[in-house]
């Protein structure tokens, strides 16, 4: 028998960080499946390439920092970052876009700050924003939803990989890209919302054809994580609440100046992905439950402000990065009351 000097507690819950990360990865699947149904194989190629690059970059960084890469890859944080960036990028992104994004996410945003747990900004969102600023054209061209393609043939899986690896910025096929519903609302100044909906098929039933499926998928995944107690409700519901509230205030009865209905905002763009997979990133968020609620509320409000008055089609990445900035401040003002203190 080895009598060892181990300090209390001696018992430990079964949950590990790797499991937490795997659950998060797993929970993206409904959303990923919905996106594939909606926009074709392009999301899958994004994800596969992002994971390959992410793993390689993480291993490289660890080797350079003289740490055992195996131990750190096992925490699966690079996998989750790769997944999220792969989902966020426009489907069928070229390999070099993905590589560049992953480089900024893993090397600059995470490893240069000290590795997992030390990054003040959400790595996937840093990668996304860098790409958006550097390649606005490539980053704002979304594939048209499959149901709206008509005669245009969507590429198969192999063909999709061919497109991505071929490195051309996009398959230039007419009618293969389409303005997103959020784009349409933002650019609209003449039509009532109801007319807009009639004019463009993209609007679907409430959040936009394809978009409402994808958002629904991420919502399901998020609820699963909530049920598994991977995170608390504070940040996601905070974000959805403030976004819904502001879009209701500015709905303006569906006039031509309307910013779109709350339903459109909740089920369009990256709303659900952001609410359930991005603002819930624990590392770059606030610490306490109250802090996380404020974090979510702030992110939701910023999403709306940028969508309505900003220059970018979607706003989740900017909103989250801005909130990352003030997270320490939130922490300072939301320290919970300790037992026995007033």
């Amino acid at each position, binding site marked *: 028998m080895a*009598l060892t000097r181990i*300090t209390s507690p001696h018992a*430990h819950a079964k949950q590990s960080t790797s499991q937490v990360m795997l659950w998060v990865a797993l929970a993206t699947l409904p959303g990923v499946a919905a996106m594939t149904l909606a926009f074709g194989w392009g999301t899958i190629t994004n994800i596969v390439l992002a994971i390959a690059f992410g793993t390689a970059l993480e291993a490289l960084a660890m080797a350079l920092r003289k740490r055992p890469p195996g131990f750190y890859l096992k925490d699966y944080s690079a996998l989750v970052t790769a997944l999220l960036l792969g989902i966020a990028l426009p489907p069928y992104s070229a390999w070099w876009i993905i590589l560049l994004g992953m480089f900024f996410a893993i090397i600059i945003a995470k490893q240069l700050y000290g590795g997992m747990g030390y990054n003040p900004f959400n790595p996937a969102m840093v990668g996304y924003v860098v790409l958006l600023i550097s390649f606005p054209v490539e980053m704002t061209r979304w594939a048209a939803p499959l149901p709206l393609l008509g005669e245009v043939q969507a590429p198969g899986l192999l063909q999709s990989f061919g497109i991505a690896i071929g490195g051309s910025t996009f398959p230039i096929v007419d009618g293969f890209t389409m303005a997103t519903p959020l784009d349409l609302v933002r650019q609209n100044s003449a039509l009532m919302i109801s007319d807009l909906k009639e004019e463009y098929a993209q609007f679907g039933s409430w959040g936009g054809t394809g978009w409402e499926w994808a958002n629904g998928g991420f919502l399901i995944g998020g609820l699963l994580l909530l049920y598994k107690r991977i995170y608390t409700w504070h940040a996601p519901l905070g974000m959805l609440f403030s976004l819904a509230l502001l879009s209701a205030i500015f709905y303006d009865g569906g006039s031509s100046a309307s910013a779109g209905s709350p339903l459109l905002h909740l089920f369009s763009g990256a709303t659900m992905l952001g609410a359930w997979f991005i603002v819930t990133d624990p590392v770059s968020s606030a610490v*306490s439950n109250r802090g996380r609620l404020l974090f979510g509320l702030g992110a939701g409000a910023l999403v709306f402000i940028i969508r309505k008055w900003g220059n970018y089609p979607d706003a989740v990445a900017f909103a989250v990065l801005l909130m990352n900035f003030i997270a320490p401040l939130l922490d300072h003002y939301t320290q919970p009351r300790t*037992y026995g203190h007033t």
Partner: protein
Amino acid sequence: MLTKILQTLSPATAISPVQPERYSPSIMRMRKIWDIHGGIHPPENKTQSLGERIRQAGIPAQLILPLSQHIGAAAVPIVKVGDQILKGQCIARAEGLVSVPVHAPSSGCVVAIENRPIPHPSGLDDLCIVIDTDGHDRWRERNPVENFASCDKQTLLGIIRDAGIAGMGGAGFPTGFKLNVRDAREIDTLVLNGTECEPYITSDHALMRERAEEIAEGIAILAQLLQPREILLGVEDNKLDVVAGLQSALQAHDFNALSQRDCIVEVVTFPTKYPSGGEKQLIEILTGKQVPSGRLPADLGIVCQNLGTAVAIADAVLRDIPLISRITTITGEAVDRPCNLEVLLGTPVEYLLQQCGFRAGENNRLVMGGPMMGFALLDTRVPVIKTSNCILAPTEAELPKPPAAQPCIRCGFCAEACPASLLPQQLYWFAQGKELEKLEQHNIADCIECGACSYVCPSNIPLVQYYRAAKAEIRERDRDMQQAEYAKQRFDARQERLQRLEQEKQAARKARQAKAAARSKQSGDADPKAAAVAAALARVEAKKVEAKKAQAANSAEDDPVQRALLKRKAQQQAEAADPQAALQQKVDSAKARLEKAETRLADAQAENSEHLAAFEAAVQKGREKLAAAEQALAQPKEKSTDQPASN
């Protein structure tokens, strides 16, 4: 849930049948209970050790009794090596107020008073009285109290103090000291802690199941002592089988008469959750009040006692049995027969393990206490002491060694689990950076080291270990600061004194000058030269006197440095004359000083003074000095008589 209750019920009904008709259902009244923040639900693992009744562990060949089994000053041996002693005889007296005596758990012979491995997280050795038992278990004369209800408070407190009772739940705070509240009427609520929230441990559960009468007796004595308005016995709902027995046992006493006012007595059950049994947590669950940070429950009119302690009090008062044994759970998958044993204090752990079929080969660590707050033993020869509620011998599969820690992902699980509503992840962050101020801002002092945060941490970070180290660092810094502060005060005082002397000197000079001037005026203005000469002469004279005065003042009366030097000189002379006597004198004076420091420390503890650390340091220093002096005294003896110095 139901099956769980049934499970916990079944072994008990087999062992201690309860007659439901003996108690009225009105006691079953539901009471409002409060929830605490956080908490966890680790696997309970309690049924293993509840299969049998409490067994006597028997008398081992040797008993090892540490002099420090409690919080406070160590007891002082009053027996010598070679003394024959009887069961229950006091073998070490309490040293000061915050201390308890030690008694012989069985009859036999003192064979050594020396350093032995003791059960302590530090794994260090400490002074123990070692007794070879004779197997006869012969008692000293016993004088139990006939009728405790007629005893006054001081008598009861005296008995409790003399019986060596210290909190048996974990910390081991001297019970007599805790119960000595200034005015009994200030105590509103007496809380009895039957929570036993740590996994594996069942010693209190066994006690409640089998010795409800003794518990009730102890509670009755406590009621007489504290005269509370309500008595709440808190029990987690995984021990519902004991409630009926406790209630009927409590009905044997008239608590209204004992506390001399209307007194509610209730057995309160509440949902099982770790760490409900922490004193502060239990108080919140039962009363909804939080003990203010840095204060005592008594400030809220609440006193909290462990059930084992209540039984010890009953034994001491009603049967004149001092604290010489306790119930200890022996459990874990590396023992074949997990059970609860009634163990004589001082019994080596290995003796108990042998009885329970210990498989050393499968055991991966030995824990005294539970899996959440217990500490690892480094030696199986350590004895059971007053606070040893459990010995846990797990296998590797049962409590695996912690894997390497991963980085903190700030998931917040720890903050969700923390019963003190702290932010463990932030504390960890600051502890790593040694940011002591930030740690204090985040109230690290309120961490009860329950381990809930580490338990849930998915990255396996040994959080509590960081907090312990950080707390130690803060204590050390405070001590340093205090010492610097004292040094500064001393320096300032000396400066001030010197300044005062100087001012007095100058004032005297001025007065003389004025006098001289006046005199010369009187003697006539005719000869200014003569007057000037006279004045100069007077000045010179005055200066001489002054110089002498200053010298005298500086030399002895007023300057402690000079005084100390003189004293030292005198001492050295004396030492040269008679070294032995001088050494003895040194020992005596060191002892006197130490005693003084310890009483001061006790007072400070009683008042919860903020200078506690300073007093502790003083006592520590005193002890070191005394030890050095004693050693010095022993050495020459050793040389001359060639005998070991240990006697």
